[in-house]
């Protein structure tokens, strides 16, 4: 996990189905205004979840070196204020090919059916 994700207390976990998710316990370093998370902290949580989804999909390549994945673009829709409470994000593979992975992701607090942010991410895969 990278230093910036650590600064925001973001960690990778597995959900009930065994899919990778990211969790965050927002503290002062993630606060945008009183009682709400900063949009960039939310985006970082989502980016880490997207990256975890791509890494999982690429799997263990055996003797092959793990490909490098580079974020090309990220678009986040902010649906409601991100609460200063434990939250999660998940990335779903829309398409993954040899060079590009397209991810749809969302972040929520208590209820995954009520996300506070939804996003699309494009990663470049280089082998």
């Amino acid at each position, binding site marked *: 996990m990278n230093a910036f994700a650590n*600064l925001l207390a973001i960690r990778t976990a597995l959900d009930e189905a065994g899919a990778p998710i990211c969790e965050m316990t927002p503290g002062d370093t993630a606060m945008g205004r009183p009682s709400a998370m900063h*949009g960039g902290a939310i985006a970082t949580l989502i980016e880490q979840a997207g990256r975890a989804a791509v890494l999982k999909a690429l799997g263990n390549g055996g003797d092959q070196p793990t490909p490098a994945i580079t974020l090309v673009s990220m678009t986040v829709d902010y649906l409601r204020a991100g609460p200063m409470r434990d939250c999660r994000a998940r990335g779903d593979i829309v398409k993954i090919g040899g060079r590009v992975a397209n991810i749809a992701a969302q972040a929520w607090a208590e209820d995954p059916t009520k996300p506070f942010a939804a996003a699309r991410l494009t990663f470049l895969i280089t082998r």
Partner: protein
Amino acid sequence: VAIEMLSAAADLGTALKGFAAIGHNAALGLAPVGHGDGWIEYRMEWRSELTGDPERLLIAPGAIYSLLDTTCSLTPWAKLGRFAPSPTLDLRVDYLRPPRPLASLVARGECHLTTEHLAFMRGVAHEGDPTDPVAICTGTFMFVDLKP
């Protein structure tokens, strides 16, 4: 309370300094560079806490997103000449190239247009030369009455 205090700040420069001292912005180490008619600039000094790749010492994509988000969300003030809270509705960031190792970044936000409810923004993050950007962004921000 902090928001109200800043809303009453006498000038944009003072307010931009105040916003830089709050929460996530403070963690980013933001410092205002300048502002003018419809634009503002913030600088983000390189620090190891902002990196995503420990070996290459590059500022993380998430931190670049945050820098651009903060910058663009406060830029409408430079257009309107008064403080109007405008949280992000949507923001797209394109990562044109990796930042250079140990490089600090500057973000400039510019306002395409403000309406009664919305501000349409663009932004660029660079290492000192705006014609050689690291990332660019496009976003929509909405004027609201924030309740504490």
